[in-house]
């Protein structure tokens, strides 16, 4: 019974990983840019939730929405204000630009909020659900379900709407998309906005059951990179499956081997997969 509970917990956590990783994979797939600030976007999302709760007395619905909006704007701004200008530069300048953005976000947060750990009250989304002996914490259940719904929603947006089709067109063939009258820079800004909103929502959800600190983005970014590489660069369904997988593996190894080893197992498996299948589990190329 305990093992089922551990796996369920892993799936819910993994769904949140999938949500914030799908933005990273979208941006990578569209423009071959690695956003090193991705984990720090999630961190900012957590602080937005904290601020809205602490100073405006907002509940989960309010702070999740606020975080989505703030991070959408931050995402768009990161592209129009920074990334767009280094796109024509070398790979190194692109990497350093987003890495620099990560450091600015992280240390600005240190400066404003200090390095103290913060947290939202545990009973914000109350209690524990008992499903025939399987105990599921409500905050994680809500986070997991919302995250799965939104990741599937992003996939639906990309594959079933006109704007999603235009986004994918730019990612597939930028010049051909321009021949359709599509402006690639607008689509890329939108992709950064969507990726941002995803991290914002994920951050706000995570904040309901995880500590908040300026450096929390580091750990999360690493998870996102593993999810993206495992799921196949550019694939949202791949990110969903890989996210769930990572969540389950982490929780299982924490339970079976002890919490200290959970990341070691994840990264060992990650290296093994890349060794055997460099394109990731679901990558197309």
């Amino acid at each position: 019974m305990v093992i089922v509970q551990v796996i369920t917990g892993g799936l819910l956590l993994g769904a949140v990983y999938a949500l914030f990783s799908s933005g990273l994979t979208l941006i990578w797939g569209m423009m071959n840019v690695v956003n090193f600030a991705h984990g720090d976007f999630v961190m900012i999302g957590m602080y937005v939730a904290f601020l809205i709760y602490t100073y405006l007395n907002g509940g989960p619905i309010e702070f999740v929405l606020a975080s989505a909006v703030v991070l959408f704007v931050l995402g768009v701004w990161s592209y129009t204000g920074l990334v767009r200008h280094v796109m024509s530069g070398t790979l190194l300048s692109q990497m350093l630009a987003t890495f620099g953005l990560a450091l600015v976000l992280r240390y600005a947060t240190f400066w404003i909020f200090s390095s103290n750990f913060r947290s939202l009250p545990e009973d914000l989304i109350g209690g524990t659900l008992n499903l025939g002996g399987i105990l599921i914490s409500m905050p994680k259940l809500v986070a997991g379900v919302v995250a799965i719904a939104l990741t599937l929603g992003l996939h639906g947006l990309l594959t079933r709407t006109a704007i999603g089709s235009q986004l994918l067109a730019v990612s597939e063939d930028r010049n051909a998309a321009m021949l359709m009258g599509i402006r690639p820079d607008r689509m890329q800004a939108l992709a950064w906005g969507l990726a941002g909103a995803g991290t914002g929502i994920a951050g706000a959800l995570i904040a309901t059951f995880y500590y908040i600190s300026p450096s929390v983005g580091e750990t999360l970014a690493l998870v996102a990179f593993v999810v993206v590489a495992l799921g196949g660069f550019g694939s949202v369904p791949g990110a969903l499956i890989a996210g769930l997988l990572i969540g389950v593996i982490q929780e299982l190894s924490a339970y079976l081997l002890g919490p200290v080893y959970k990341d070691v197992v994840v990264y060992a498996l990650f290296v093994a997969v890349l060794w055997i299948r460099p394109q990731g589990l679901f990558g197309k190329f």
Partner: protein
Amino acid sequence: MTDRLRVTNLEVRYGDLVGVADVSFEVAEGSVVALLGSNGAGKTTTLNAIAGLVKPSRGTIEWRGEDIGRLPAYAIVPKGLALSPEGWRLFVGQTVEQNLRLGTATVRDKARVPALLDRVYTTFPRLAERRKQRAGTLSGGERQMLAMGRALMSEPRLLLLDEPSLGLAPAIVDTLYETLERLHQDGLTLLLAEQSVSLALEVADHAYVLQTGRTVLDGPAEALQHDAQVQEIYLGTKTKPVMEH
């Protein structure tokens, strides 16, 4: 002249390479004009420059009296020009219908989209059969139809076609050219780049011959069709006058 496309002394450089050195020609609205020449003569570069994919380093491109030579590709489409590019450049991960709908990105009145789709499906019934299939699963002929159909979705006044016959079976090429003639009768202006001289001269009113990036000769299609010497010198078709179908 505000009723035509006018290209004057066009030069396009790719770094140190000269893609097009000196190309001049005109396409009057309502006409069919062919750009002829062997591989590497500069036909594709010329069409890409008009469509805004590459920037001219010298010369002008005027469309209906407006200089469009410096506009990016996405700003050219709303002016009423559409390019069916070399190699088709389809969005192979998306369905036939998604590809066609992408062609309507600049159509402001979205209520017109179903009618535009209908028109392309009537023109190319094969595409209608394959509308839910990914573009990557299509045959060469179907891909050419889709590239043309997609370009038509933006309701262009002038359709630019890059090598519509390249690599296709003769029967399919015939069908495509019949379609082109029909589109022309419906009022569409056509500019086509072709290596297949005989085909191009059959549908064109006027043709320009390109050689190593320069326009070296032009004339009414009929005259070029019957000038064996011209064919031999400029087009490398060392044959008797063009075979009739």
